């Protein structure tokens, strides 16, 4: 193992000699990279490597291998060995950026957190952002460029793109040049593309992302003649209607939206008000699970229901005493006059419409990306009719380059490729060979292009199909910029010198313009030198780097100019007949996004918020539909859709719409370097068609038969196999009215229990946590945060099947009520740090015991693995290292480990420690200053977008923690056991519309 360690070291030593590194030394920031030579880093590594041996007993006894200490040659001023530093940068996904703070241990980024100053984050970080650190260290990232079959240097491939070489192939005007990028709001890319267009006026530049915001852009083009982007302010919305929109999770701005939404849901006292959320959707999304009322309908019906709501709203606005119809012209209103909701939904629609109009001006209607332009138009109209514009939402110009333009369609490019018009194609980032609609047959079209160059992190499906490949840089290695959903620009600065070399997107475009050695850093500075306000550029630049946002770049509000005729004609076009056939719904995956994170083990093993599935996708359908189709969870079914068939295991999801099957994208990755991702789950893109509709009717489902004719079954690795609470007082819930009528409804579940033992002494810091179930959406950001902070290993699909997942913090998901239309309850479950901990007294070697500040400590190096503690833990939050899970961790991946936390070896128990390393760090710092312990924030608390987790000391009277623990809806899970947990919950409170029956089928 130490052997590995040394090898790992040699690699990095070599790395110190790479040109990138010397260059890096010169650069402004990555001086940190020099610290790779520092002994403490080395020590941290040896610590990581050694720990597992030590825990495996070898080092545990006596012998300690002699270690080398390699100090600096000359100490860089900004760093103190052993003290972690945070740097601001930002990550782009789906074209928009989220501001981040990245923790760096002497030049080695180890943990990603949100940037409180960034509007899209406000300090929170989602699963994608946090897991992206693992992508940086992914051993399967491409390390070298490639020409044909042979390895090549980056410059060789860059030379291929030089005007001299390329011009010959594609003509002076670039008529034969094709450029395929991902949608982006980066000013730098936009600028580079502008220059490319200057150089090659006839070049075909296209943007493609299967999850892009194209529909909404086209809608706003129709409605306003401009690609306007609605900016919702959920803090001022009393009633929210989501039309198949999962705005609370996975979207470019959902961290912010979730925060704002939660601020109106977090009620300190029964008297407080609360917002109300209606959701119309086919599957069960995170947003849907949070809803007060969910209407489960097939995706194809959403459109007609939306217009029905609009019609009803207009009708009711006409009634006297109602606010005016907010100037929707009769031309449009008349179109909707006749529209009636389907009888079985009439009651629901009318109630919602009444609720919306009653709160006109304080409501929001959101349309989902997946829904067609018409639904987005309807949402715009609803917001207009309710007078929300200017109050709860404002419009801005979409920051996306060429938003809504035809360049965002893939079809034309593929046509040109197939027709031979494209002589050279450069693909940047996107992975069309995998994500392109199946009927486009991108692969075939690609073969018709003489020169194809792929630029990306991995040699993936597309890269394999291209002649030349040039590795791109991970954003933690790059200089770049980007814009957030609200237009705020921020810089991307590297945290570490490139591990394997490569070029950023801007640098590659630079090469296309003839500057083969273009440096993104210079390009970026040149661009912003002109744009940054203030005379002192250097100062502004440094501030932008430090704060992580460029001041005053948020997009200004624009007043939309309504194109009533266009709208009228769109609406009057009769909606497609909502046939009653079985429908297929494709959706973004909460773990692997569009498949780009499929090689990320953290995300593969992250349980889906609703199904709790890991390592793969499944055809989700409602119990009723499953019964009709005679399939059970685990049966492999063949989905026949528009001439293509896909085999995928079925999964029964309570609350799913009937006659609808939803399937997550991003799995079933093809042959490429990403061997982890390969063949995990089924490739839903094979059912995606070029009209880019993410859903449609006419799906046929039949049980898939094996060669022997027997029905096939597949084992789905779900981390939670039982869904019902069995009436146990674990996750409590009440409606707002019930809460107001009986504020003490959780009283039986709190307070002291009769006990022979003394109450624990309460001096000094006394750490405790409060988790608010009313605002927990189940998004799972906390789970990844915990995994990253605490070096939690992954166990693989078989491990999950065996019930051995290692997550210290899990989110239990319960369904209440009928299996058809249940209420969803999310409960983060972690070590409850019981004051009377059952695990402690049964350990024969005192490997787990109580600290004076109220922590239930787990001492890995003392544990001998009797597992008695786990047996006696009523919350089953303890995890056991059944094997040496860190043995297979790649050398590069070890760099992602947190040096402040022991890496556990085989045969020891582990569990949530309340991030004790952070607590002790704070206490030591305080001790050095001779002050009281400052604020300590756990990783999960930090990541949570809705601030559902509060942590602090019970003896700190003016802390949030103490305040929230005083709330009447506080309770302890399994209180009657007398474990007196330090983690306490605030019961979930929902705010259903009294006019409507409870969504969860009563009780």
């Amino acid at each position, binding site marked *: 193992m130490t052997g590995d360690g040394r090898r790992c070291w040699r690699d990095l030593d070599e790395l110190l000699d790479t040109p990138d590194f010397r260059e890096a030394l010169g650069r402004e920031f990555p001086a940190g990279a020099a610290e790779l030579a520092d002994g403490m880093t080395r020590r941290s590594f040896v610590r990581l490597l050694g720990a597992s041996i030590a*825990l*495996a*007993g070898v080092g*545990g006894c006596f012998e300690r291998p002699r270690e080398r200490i390699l100090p600096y040659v000359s100490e860089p001023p900004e760093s103190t060995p052993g003290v972690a530093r945070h740097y601001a940068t930002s990550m782009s996904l789906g074209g928009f950026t989220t501001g981040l703070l990245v923790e760096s241990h002497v030049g080695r980024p180890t943990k990603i957190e949100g940037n409180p100053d960034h509007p899209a984050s406000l300090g929170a970080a989602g699963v994608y952002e946090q897991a992206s650190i693992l992508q940086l260290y992914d051993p399967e990232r491409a390390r070298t460029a490639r020409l044909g079959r042979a390895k090549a240097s980056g410059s060789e491939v860059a030379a291929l793109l030089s005007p001299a070489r390329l011009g010959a192939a594609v003509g002076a005007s670039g008529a034969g040049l094709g450029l395929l990028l991902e949608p982006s709001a980066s000013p730098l890319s936009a600028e580079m593309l502008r220059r490319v267009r200057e150089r090659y006026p006839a070049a075909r530049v296209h943007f493609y992302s299967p999850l892009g915001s194209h529909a909404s852009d086209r809608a706003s083009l129709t409605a306003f003649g401009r690609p306007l982007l609605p900016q919702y302010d959920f803090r001022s919305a009393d009633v929210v209607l989501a039309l198949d929109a999962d705005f609370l999770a996975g979207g470019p701005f959902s961290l912010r939206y979730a925060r704002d939404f939660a601020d109106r849901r977090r009620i300190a006292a029964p008297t407080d008000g609360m917002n109300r959320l209606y959701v119309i959707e086919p599957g069960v999304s995170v947003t849907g699970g949070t809803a007060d009322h969910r209407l489960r309908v097939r995706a194809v019906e959403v459109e007609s229901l939306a217009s029905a709501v609009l019609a009803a709203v207009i009708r009711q606005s006409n009634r006297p005493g109602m606010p005016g119809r907010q100037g929707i012209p009769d031309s449009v209103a008349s179109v909707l006059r006749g529209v009636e909701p389907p009888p079985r939904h009439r009651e629901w629609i009318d109630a919602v419409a009444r609720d919306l109009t009653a709160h006109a001006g304080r409501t929001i209607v959101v349309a989902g990306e997946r829904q067609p332009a018409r639904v987005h138009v309807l949402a715009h109209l609803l917001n207009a009719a309710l007078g929300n514009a200017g109050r709860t939402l404002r419009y801005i110009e979409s920051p996306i380059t060429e938003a809504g333009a035809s360049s965002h369609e893939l079809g034309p490019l593929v046509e040109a490729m197939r027709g031979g018009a494209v002589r050279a194609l450069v693909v940047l980032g996107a992975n069309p060979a995998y994500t392109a609609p199946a009927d486009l047959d991108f692969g075939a079209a690609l073969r018709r292009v003489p020169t194809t160059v792929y630029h990306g992190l991995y040699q993936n499906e597309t890269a394999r199909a291209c002649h030349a490949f040039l590795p791109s840089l991970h954003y933690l290695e790059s200089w770049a910029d980007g814009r957030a959903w609200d237009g705020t620009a921020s810089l991307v600065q590297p945290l570490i010198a490139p591990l394997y070399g490569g070029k950023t997107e801007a640098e590659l475009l630079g090469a296309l313009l003839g500057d083969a050695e273009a440096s993104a850093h210079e390009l970026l500075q040149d661009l912003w030198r002109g744009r940054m306000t203030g005379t002192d550029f250097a100062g502004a630049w440094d501030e932008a780097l430090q704060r992580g946002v460029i001041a005053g770049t948020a997009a200004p509000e624009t007043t939309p100019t309504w194109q009533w005729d266009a709208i009228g004609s769109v609406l009057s076009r009769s909606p497609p007949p909502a046939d009653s056939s079985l429908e297929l719904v494709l959706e973004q995956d909460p773990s692997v996004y569009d498949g780009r994170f499929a090689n990320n083990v953290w995300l593969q093993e992250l349980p889906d918020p609703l199904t709790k599935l890991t390592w793969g996708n499944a055809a989700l359908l409602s119990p009723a539909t499953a019964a009709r189709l005679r399939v059970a969870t685990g049966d492999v079914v063949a989905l026949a859709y528009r001439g293509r068939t896909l085999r995928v295991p079925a999964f029964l999801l309570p609350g799913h719409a009937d006659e609808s099957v939803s399937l997550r994208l991003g799995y079933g990755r093809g042959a490429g370097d990403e061997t982890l991702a390969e063949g995990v789950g089924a490739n839903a893109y094979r059912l995606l068609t070029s009209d880019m509709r993410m859903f449609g009717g006419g799906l046929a489902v039949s049980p898939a038969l094996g060669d022997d004719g027997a029905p096939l079954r597949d084992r789905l690795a779900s981390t*939670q*196999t*039982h*869904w*019902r*609470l*069995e*009436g*146990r007082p*674990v996750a409590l819930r009440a409606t707002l009215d019930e809460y107001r009528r009986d504020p003490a409804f959780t009283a039986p579940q709190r307070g002291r229990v009769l006990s022979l033992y003394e109450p624990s002494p309460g001096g000094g810091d006394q750490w405790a946590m409060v988790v608010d179930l009313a605002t927990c959406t189940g998004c799972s950001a906390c789970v990844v945060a915990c995994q990253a902070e605490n070096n939690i290993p992954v166990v693989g699909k078989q491990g999950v099947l*065996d*019930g*051995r997942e290692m997550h210290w913090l*899990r989110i*239990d*998901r*319960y369904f209440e009520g009928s299996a058809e239309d249940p209420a969803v309850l999310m*409960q983060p*479950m972690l070590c409850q740090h019981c004051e009377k901990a*059952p695990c402690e*007294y*049964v*350990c*024969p*070697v*005192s490997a787990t015991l109580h600290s004076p500040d109220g922590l239930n400590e787990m001492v890995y190096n*003392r*544990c*001998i*693995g*009797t*597992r*008695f503690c*786990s*047996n*006696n833990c*009523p*919350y*089953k939050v*303890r*995890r*056991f*290292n*059944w*094997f*040496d899970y860190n043995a297979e961790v790649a050398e590069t991946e070890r760099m992602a480990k947190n040096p402040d936390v022991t890496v556990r070896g*085989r*045969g*020891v*128990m582990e569990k949530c420690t309340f991030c004790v390393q952070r607590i002790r760090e704070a206490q030591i710092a305080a001790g050095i200053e001779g002050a009281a312990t400052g604020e300590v924030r756990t990783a999960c608390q930090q990541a949570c977008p809705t601030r559902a987790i509060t942590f602090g000391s019970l003896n700190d009277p003016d802390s949030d923690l103490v305040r929230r623990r005083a709330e009447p809806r506080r309770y302890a*899970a*399994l209180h009657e*056991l007398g474990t007196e947990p330090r983690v306490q919950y605030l019961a979930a409170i929902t705010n259903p519309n009294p006019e409507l029956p409870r969504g969860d089928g009563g009780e």
Partner: protein
Amino acid sequence: MATAVSSGPAQLTDRLLAPAWTPSRVWWVLFGISGAGTLVLAGAVAYTVATGIGVWGNNIPVAWAYAIINFVWWIGIGHAGTFISAFLLLFHQRWRSSINRVAEAMTLFALVNAGLFPLLHLGRPWFFYWLIPYPTRMGVWPQFKSALPWDAAAVATYFTVSLLFWYLGLVPDLAAARDRAPGRTRRRVYGVFALGWRGSGRQWHQYRVAYLILAGLAAPLVISVHSIVSLDFAISQLPGWHSTIFPPYFVVGAIYSGFAMVLLLLIPIRRAFQLEDIITERHLDNMAKLLLAMAWMLIYSYVVETFMAWYSGNVYERYTYLVERPFGPYAWIFWGMLTANVVVPQLFWSRRLRVSAPVLFAASLLILAGMWTERFIIIVTSLNRGFLPSSWHFYVPTWVDWSILFGSVAFFFLLFFLFLRFVPMVAISELKQQRHEASTAASAVAAR
């Protein structure tokens, strides 16, 4: 009459020692089979220690399974020997003499097996010695609040005492073997172990005292060991474990399975070595009666356990006892267990069945299986559905679990066959003494 007395003992001794001198072909076959099985055990254990106990089926929540089941099962079996030797001796149950040697040997071998599992089931077995209270370099001690250090101590003590007890009982017979063994080497070997026994009156006197003292020491251990083992479960708050009836419940179950194992071994021996006159129907009858008695104590425990669960009104207790066990995923094992442990022994109400070797043999086999599954029910069905429904998980053993279980059985029989081969399997001296007393009593009557 006198001749009979003088010739009888010698013949008896020779008869009982004969198998030791000349192993039959059957012996070699059985030896080979059990030896092979033992190799399987060794392989599985090596594999486990090298790879990690992840090769077993255990998971969270079912963190304990086969290893602990086997441990409790073997310990239980290990109770009969000492019970027969110590208790029956103290209660002057003379009939014990013909079976106590086998029973004691069985106890030892069961304990050897049992001892294997607590070590093996550790995540880091190489640190097992941290369970022992000694001044460590770390300046820390085991935690005595936990039942496990006590458990280790109890089992170790019990093994030591059982070993001494068994060996002490052997000494006179080893001497007999020494005097009769063909060939000088064997005589020397037996001689060393006979520790220079001459059978002088003084030696006999001290021998009896020592034997009685050891019996006195061993008797309480029979109760204590399994009581402490039961605490491994009872001190937890897990429904299905958290019960005050566990200590007596476990002890009864232990002796129950112990007797079953004794019968399982005696019946074939009796047949193979034509010992019908030594291990008489009376022995079978008594053993069967004991089984029946134990069965009813066990039934009482079952009833009380379940009643208490219901009476407590505790939702978790009720779920475990009234839903999970009788109707849960492992219900078929539960009902099978009840059949074996409750229904089968009821046969012994009939004397005819009590003395029928085949019936007894089959019954003991079933009861042993039943007692193993009882431990499975206690451990697995309590763990797999605990307090939080979210953490419920099924348990499935792996091939390693099975090989270790069957391997340990094979290992047990390997040791036992070696015992048959090299050690007098019946307490010859005690028998002779009894017969002598019996005959002298008879002659006294005749004389009058």
